[in-house]
C-alpha cells in the first residue's frame, strides 16, 4: 500500500500514514497499492456552473444554488447544498423548486463558464499536452511518463493540478486515477466533491462486479432499459457473459461493454478530438404549438449555428432538428444535404421543412417545450456551399448572407439582420 498526502504531496508506505499525513498532519491522504503506477486521470469540476456562481458572489456561499434555464428549463448544475434537498442536474426546474423552494436560481452564463473552462484547461496543459476535454468542466489527462519531467508521480501531478485550480480559478475538482479512460471516469465520480479516487489493475474487475450497469460509460437510459429487459442489472452479470454473445446482441456497444466489464478500454487520449456537431436549442417559457412562432425561433438558432460553424471554419453535411414535446418525448429528424453548408439560410430552409413535416404529421395540435437545430457530419469549411446547378437562386441567397456577415464583422453582430429574426 502506498499513501500520498494530497496537500504536501509526501509519499510514504501506507502504514506510516494510517490516518493523517506524517509531515503536515492533513487528513487528505490517498492510499492505493498501485498509486504510483497509474497515469490516466479524469478531472471533473464539482458542480461547476454553481461553483463559478458562488465564487463570483460570496453571499451565495451557504445557499442552495441551482443553475438552469428559468422555471421551464432543466437544472444544468446544482451546488452540493442544493443536492442535499434532492436536486439533481437534468431535473426539470419546477421539480427542483418543489424539492428546494428556497434555492437561488441563476440563469446560465455559458460565456463565463467557457472562459473559466479555458483557464482550467490551460492549467492542465502546463503538465501534459495530452488533455482531452469532454465538456467545459471535465477532461482526461494522460500523465503517463511525466514523472521525470515534473519530478513526481502522475498522482502527485494530478493533485497539484487540482490544488492550482482551487487556488487560481476558485473552483474545486475531483480526480479519478486509473489505467484507462473509462475507469478514470468512473473513479472521478466515486469521491466527489474534492475527491481523489483510484482504481488499480488488480482490483478493477472485482470493483466493477459490484456496480450497476449504469456505471458503464455510454450506457444511457435506453440501453439500461434494454439490459433490464434482458434481465441484466449488474456489471457482474455482464462479466459472466461471453464477449461474442454481447456483440451479437448489442452490436458495437456490446463489444465496448465486454471490454469495460473486464476493465479494458483501448481508447487513447487524444488532445485534438475534432468537433462532431454544432447546434443550438432553446427550452421555452411556455409550450409553443404555433408553427410560425417555432419558425422564428428556428431562424435565430440557425443564425447562431451558422455563426459558430463559420468561425470554426467548418461546414456541416446533415441538418438535425430536435423537438421535445410536452410529455418530454424527444423527436429528432435529420436530413443529409447534397453539399456541406455553413449558411444560416440553408440550415433554416431544411430545418423548416423538417419542422413542417413533423407538424403536418399530427392530426391534432401538439405543443412543444424545446426546439433545436444543429449540423453534424462536419467537414472543412472550404468545401462549404459550392455552386448548385439545381438551385441557381441559392447563389444569390448565399451572397446576401456573406454580405450580411461582412457588415457584422465591421459593425457588430446586431448591426444587421433579416426581418424574420426580429422579435
Amino acid at each position, binding site marked *: 500500500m502506498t499513501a500520498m498526502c494530497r496537500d504536501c504531496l509526501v509519499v510514504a508506505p501506507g502504514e506510516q500514514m494510517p490516518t493523517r499525513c506524517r509531515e503536515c498532519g492533513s487528513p487528505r491522504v490517498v492510499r492505493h497499492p498501485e498509486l504510483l503506477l497509474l497515469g490516466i486521470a479524469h478531472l471533473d469540476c464539482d458542480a461547476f456552473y454553481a461553483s463559478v456562481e458562488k465564487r463570483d458572489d460570496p453571499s451565495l456561499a451557504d445557499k442552495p444554488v441551482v443553475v438552469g434555464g428559468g422555471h421551464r428549463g432543466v437544472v444544468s448544475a446544482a451546488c452540493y447544498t442544493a443536492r442535499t434537498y434532492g436536486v439533481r442536474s437534468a431535473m426539470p426546474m419546477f421539480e427542483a423548486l418543489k424539492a428546494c423552494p428556497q434555492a437561488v436560481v441563476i440563469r446560465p452564463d455559458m460565456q463565463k463558464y467557457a472562459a473559466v473552462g479555458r483557464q482550467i484547461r490551460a492549467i492542465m496543459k502546463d503538465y501534459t499536452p495530452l488533455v482531452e476535454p469532454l465538456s467545459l468542466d471535465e477532461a482526461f489527462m494522460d500523465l503517463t511518463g511525466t514523472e521525470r519531467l515534473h519530478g513526481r508521480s502522475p498522482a502527485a501531478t494530478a493533485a497539484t493540478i487540482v490544488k492550482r485550480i482551487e487556488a487560481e480559478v476558485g473552483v474545486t475538482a475531483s480526480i479519478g486515477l486509473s489505467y484507462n479512460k473509462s475507469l478514470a471516469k468512473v473513479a472521478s465520480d466515486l469521491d466527489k466533491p474534492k475527491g481523489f479516487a483510484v482504481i488499480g489493475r488488480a482490483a478493477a474487475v472485482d470493483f466493477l462486479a459490484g456496480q450497476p450497469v449504469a456505471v458503464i460509460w455510454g450506457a444511457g437510459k435506453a440501453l439500461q432499459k434494454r439490459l433490464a429487459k434482458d434481465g441484466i442489472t449488474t456489471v457482474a452479470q455482464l462479466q459472466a457473459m461471453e464477449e461474442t454473445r454481447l456483440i451479437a446482441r448489442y452490436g458495437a456497444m456490446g463489444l465496448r461493454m465486454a471490454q469495460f466489464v473486464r476493465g479494458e478500454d483501448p481508447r487513447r487520449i487524444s488532445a485534438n478530438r475534432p468537433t462532431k456537431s454544432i447546434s443550438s436549442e432553446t427550452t421555452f417559457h411556455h409550450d409553443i404549438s404555433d408553427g410560425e412562432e417555432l419558425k422564428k425561433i428556428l431562424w435565430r438558432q440557425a443564425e447562431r449555428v451558422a455563426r459558430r460553424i463559420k468561425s470554426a471554419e467548418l461546414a456541416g453535411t446533415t441538418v438535425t432538428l430536435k423537438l421535445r414535446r410536452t410529455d418530454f418525448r424527444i423527436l429528432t429528424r435529420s*436530413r443529409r444535404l447534397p453539399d456541406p453548408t455553413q449558411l444560416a439560410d440553408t440550415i433554416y430552409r431544411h430545418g423548416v421543412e423538417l419542422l413542417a413535416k413533423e407538424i403536418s404529421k399530427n392530426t391534432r395540435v401538439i405543443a412543444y417545450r424545446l426546439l433545436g437545430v444543429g449540423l453534424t457530419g462536419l467537414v472543412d469549411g472550404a468545401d462549404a456551399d459550392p455552386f448548385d446547378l439545381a438551385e441557381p437562386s441559392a447563389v444569390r441567397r448565399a451572397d446576401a448572407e456573406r454580405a450580411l456577415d461582412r457588415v457584422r464583422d465591421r459593425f457588430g453582430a446586431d448591426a444587421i439582420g433579416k426581418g424574420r429574426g426580429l422579435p
Partner: protein
Amino acid sequence: MQLTIERSAFLRALGHVQNVVERRNTIPILSNVQLVANEAGLSLTATDLDLAIVETVACEVRRPGGTTAPAHVLHDIVRKLPDGAQIELDYGAEAGRLVVRAARSKFALSCLPREDFPVMADGDLPYHFVLPAADLRRLIEKTRFAISTEETRYYLNGIYLHAPEDAPVLRGVATDGHRLAHIEISLPEGAGGMPGVIMPRKAALEVHKLIEDGEGVIEIALSDSKIRFSLGDIVLTSKLIDGTFPDYQRVIPSGNDKLMEVDCKSFAAAVDRVATISSEKSRAVKLTVNGSTVVLSANSPEQGSGTDEVPVNFNGEGVLEIGFNARYLLDITGQIDGENACFDLSDGASPTIVRDAADPGALYVLMPMRV
C-alpha cells in the same frame, strides 16, 4: 383460363414485365403479374403503383379468363424450361392455383385474385406524338447518369422532358446539382405544345430497356400527370414527378471563352489512370491547362500522387487550373461519341461546359471542385 403459349415468346414478355416488379414488396399482390387471356392473346401486366407495363403475346387460348401469379417465380420457371417448349397455363383446374405444364414438368403456383390487382388509370392523355425509338434511346442514355437519387429534391429524380420555345427540339435535362446533362432530339410532330414533364428515373430506364435494338418508332401520349409509351405490343404507363424542375437555363454559363479541345478517348483514359490514386472520398483530379497540353494530377495523403499529360488545343492565355470529381468527368466523357470533347472554361471555380464536337444536340455542365 386455359391456353398454350410458345416458351420463348412468353419468356421475353415475362422478362419485360418482371423488371417492374420490386424484389421486396409490402403489398403482396404487387409481386404478382396479372395474366389475362382473351381473343387478342395473353396480356401480362405488372405494376409498382407508379408505373405499369402491359404486354400482349399471341397464343392459343382455349378458355378465356385471368389471374395473378408471382412474377419472379413464374419468370424463373419459364426461363428454366427447355427452349422450344410449348407451355400450358391452366387456371381453374386446381382451386386458387395456376398450373404451368411443359413436357413432363408441372408447377402449381399460388395465385391472388385478379380483382385485387391495381389498375393504373390512364386518364386523359391529350398530347400525342411519335418519335424514332433511336432518338428516345439516345436522349435517355445520355442524360440518365446525371439523374439525382436525392430524396429530398424529388423533382430531380427524373429527366425533364420538354419542347422549349427557343428551338424546334425535344429536350431532356437531368441534374443532381453537381452536373447537368442537356440533350436535344428533333421535335416530333405534335410535341410542340406539350407541357414540360419530369419523367421518373425508373420509367426512363425501363423504356430504355424495352427499346433494345432501337429500331422502329415509339408512340408517346401524355398529360401533365402521366406519360404512356407504346412500343408495338408493349405499353408502359408511368406517373410523372409532380414538381417544378429548376430553371436550368440560368446555370448554363454563356461567357466561358477559354476553349479546350481534347481527344476524348485518350483524355478519359488519362483521367481514369490518374484517379487511381485520388482519395476514395473526394476522387478529385486537377487539370492544369497550359498552352498545348493538359496535365492531370491527383494527390492522396495516404497513397501518394500521380500525373498524366494529354495534348490539347487551347485558346486561353497563361495557365488555367481546375479540379473535377474524376467519376463525374468519366461519366460525361463516356457520353461523348465523337472523337473530340470540347471544354468551355471560365476559371477554376465556375461551371464548365463540356460538348461533343460531333453532336451539337448534346451539352453537359460540370461543377468544378476545390483541389
